[in-house]
């Protein structure tokens, strides 16, 4: 199949202090997007919006988890340090008779000289069907992560899991890019440093962390939500209010194979009267470097509610707003010849006011 080629150029003002950015993944995303949206005859599509949560439930042996009750105090270090973060978002924008229409977008944000800059990639819109789900995913994965591919993709059996997998690929690419282009900086990830899952093979995440260490960057991975409990209570609920900012160490967390933790897990409360978050820091980073990196984060970034502003912006910039969803639905209807239909919501139809379906109004 001949695929329409789009000329991909690096955004002209991508002013990271590195000369080259790998363009293969966005190029392949675009190719797959355009390929999946090409139809031999007009299809109907049902408007239906649904956000996908990327954090899959990971089986960890947390019974032995213990939270160190001795806080490690953190001091702000105001030495200018570049802070960068990335995040991705995916959303289902509609359904066709053969599959789903999804959109994926990612953003890199960095802070330098007291101002924030970003690069945003997407939205890439895909029509995922049972027929093409493997082909689309494989093509995108091949474009960048040749070494760390999971053979056979045993996990890609469910159509609904595919969007988060594609978003995860984009996120890993963004993380790898940041880890490589930044020097002596802090790279903030959304989520944990857990590997060995279907969409995060160990080698893939390990490769990213190696690149980061080579460029003297420290990776800090913040999880907004955690299920880890110590003595039956969420670890983030056990954190003390006094003495902020501080870290609490955890011990005894043993993941069930093939899951591995490439980072040490902490509870971080980075500002006064703020929330505590699970924080994963690369296991290979020396202890002093970890504490110094957190000091630099506190000294250089805004920490509203204890969450780094750079990471917050990355999340905000890639999240789809309602009007963007409408615009994308408009795009697929206009450019791809899809015909919008309004199929009745069975929940509403059967249960009236008691039916809360997934309908989007």
């Amino acid at each position, binding site marked *: 199949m001949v695929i329409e080629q*789009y000329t991909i150029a690096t955004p002209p003002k991508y002013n990271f202090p590195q000369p080259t950015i790998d363009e293969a993944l966005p190029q392949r995303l675009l190719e797959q997007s355009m390929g999946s949206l090409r139809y031999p005859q007009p299809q109907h599509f049902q408007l239906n919006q649904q956000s996908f949560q990327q954090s899959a439930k990971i089986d960890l042996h947390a019974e032995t988890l213990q939270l160190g009750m001795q806080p490690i105090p953190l001091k702000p270090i105001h030495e200018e340090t570049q802070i960068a973060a990335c995040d991705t978002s995916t959303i289902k924008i509609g359904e066709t008779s053969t599959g789903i229409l999804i959109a994926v977008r990612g953003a890199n944000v960095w802070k330098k000289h007291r101002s*924030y800059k970003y690069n*945003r990639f997407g939205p890439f819109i895909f029509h995922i069907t049972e027929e093409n789900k493997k082909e689309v995913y494989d093509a995108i994965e091949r474009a960048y992560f040749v070494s760390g591919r999971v053979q056979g993709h045993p996990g890609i059996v469910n159509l609904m899991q595919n969007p988060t997998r594609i978003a995860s690929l984009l996120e890993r690419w963004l993380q790898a890019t940041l880890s490589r282009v930044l020097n002596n900086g802090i790279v903030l990830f959304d989520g944990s440093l857990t590997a060995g899952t279907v969409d995060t093979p160990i080698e893939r995440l390990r490769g990213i962390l190696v690149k980061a260490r080579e460029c003297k960057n420290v990776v800090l991975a913040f999880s907004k939500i955690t299920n880890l409990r110590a003595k039956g209570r969420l670890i983030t609920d056990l954190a003390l209010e006094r003495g902020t900012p501080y870290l609490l160490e955890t011990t005894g967390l043993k993941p069930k194979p093939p899951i591995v933790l490439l980072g040490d897990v902490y509870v971080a409360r980075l500002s006064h009267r703020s929330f505590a978050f699970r924080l994963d820091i690369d296991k290979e980073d020396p202890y002093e470097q970890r504490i110094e990196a957190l000091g630099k984060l506190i000294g250089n970034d805004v920490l509203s509610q204890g969450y780094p502003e750079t990471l917050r912006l990355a999340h905000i910039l890639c*999240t789809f*707003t*309602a009007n963007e969803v409408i615009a994308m639905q408009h*795009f697929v209807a206009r450019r791809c010849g899809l015909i919008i239909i309004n199929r009745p919501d069975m929940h509403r139809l059967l249960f009236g006011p008691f039916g809360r379906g997934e309908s989007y109004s």
Partner: protein
Amino acid sequence: MKLYRKEGNILQILSFPNETVEKGDYLLVEDMEARKALIAQVIDVQFASVPGVLEELLRSLPDGGELVLGEDFDPLEIASHINYIQDASLLVCKIRATVENENLSPSSSWLPSRSQSTIKRLPVPTLLKLARIEGKLPIILGGTKDSSLLTIDASHLDGRLNIITGKKETGKSHLSKLLMINLVGYKATVVVFDLNGEYISLGMTGDGKRNAHYDKIHVLTPGQNFKTALKHVNLHVLLGILIHALHLPGTSAREFRRIWQSLREKDMLTLHELGEAIRNWNCNQLVRDALSSRYHALINSGFFTDSVCEATLLEDSLFKAEEHGGAIVINLRNTSAIDRQVVVEYVLGRLVEQLTSWKLKATFLFAEEAHLYLRETYWDDIVTRMRHFGIFTTFITNQPDTVKENIYRQADNIFLFNFTNEHDLEVVSRAARVDAETVKSIARDLPPHHCLVLGKVVKDFPMVVKVKAMDVKTMGETRLFFKDMN
């Protein structure tokens, strides 16, 4: 454009950035299946309430309100679609009529199909044709936004009460001159109370030459070429002047009536004899003093004379005007407030006399800032009694609250120029022939010389028109101190 909502006679229509629709425009909402269409007028243009717009705007602002700068790699060019959605507008429209089999009815009781209806702009010429606004006596008011002419029928001013209002320097007097000249052109008799001497040069072109209307414009300046002899005045007209303009008490008025009858019997109705009679009349001193002071007011007005050749017969001008069409301009420019009332009282009294005796068929009366010379009771007379006599008034004012509310309620046509003041708009919006939302929304944004025409002349389809220019000498300009310096 897409039909979004209908509430009462308000339609909400979703419009996209490539569809340029403005306030005042007419739209045709056509339901092919129902074989009917709604004619709706846009009275407001708002941003469509698109979900997520606030988030979109907010996310570009981090702490401190500084913009987050960045680059978007958007190969599918979704951004243009986002802008398209974000810039969608909501047109708030008033339903003006329903078209069915090319006939118009004011009904808005049916609901066109939201999914199947087509919405398009209705050009003014098409609307004029549908509404059959043009008649046998056309008056071109000016141009509409889509470069067509708005023509009204002079017969829709006949027997009607009209108001021309708007703030200063928006073109009210210009429009009243246009209407007047056109009425005169159709051989109508027009009387103008010209407060600022703006109409006295209507017979001249801009460069001071005589124009086609020269012979039809009769300017009467009280005290100069407009005087009256007592013997030409009827007692009730003079009593009207004494009671209403000069506030003569009832008892004194009764004595005056006796004096007047006595002098008339002796055929001695002159100013001199009247003065003598008041001085020598056997009556209460207070009554004498009251009569004497009013007598001197009449003398000082310079409007009354004993010389018959000096006196102008208003009737002569009126008859001349009725024969060929003409305007009698009562120039009140340099007339004091009391004298102004005396003259107006006289003119109206004589007009009613002529009309009740059917010596005159009907008269169009143009009154500028009427609150400055029209007595209280005349307002009610104008909307009730005078209409039956054949006096069809057009009020021209920049202070809409000086015109009584019942005048607005009874007004058949309103020519509304720009107002920005809420209070002024509130007053005008009490007019029965239009809804308050239309007045408030459209009049606020009218540029100078643009007028919102409401009422019977436009068959209740409010229309915005740029009043056409006329080649007449303008006299209504504001005198400026710094004019020569600029």
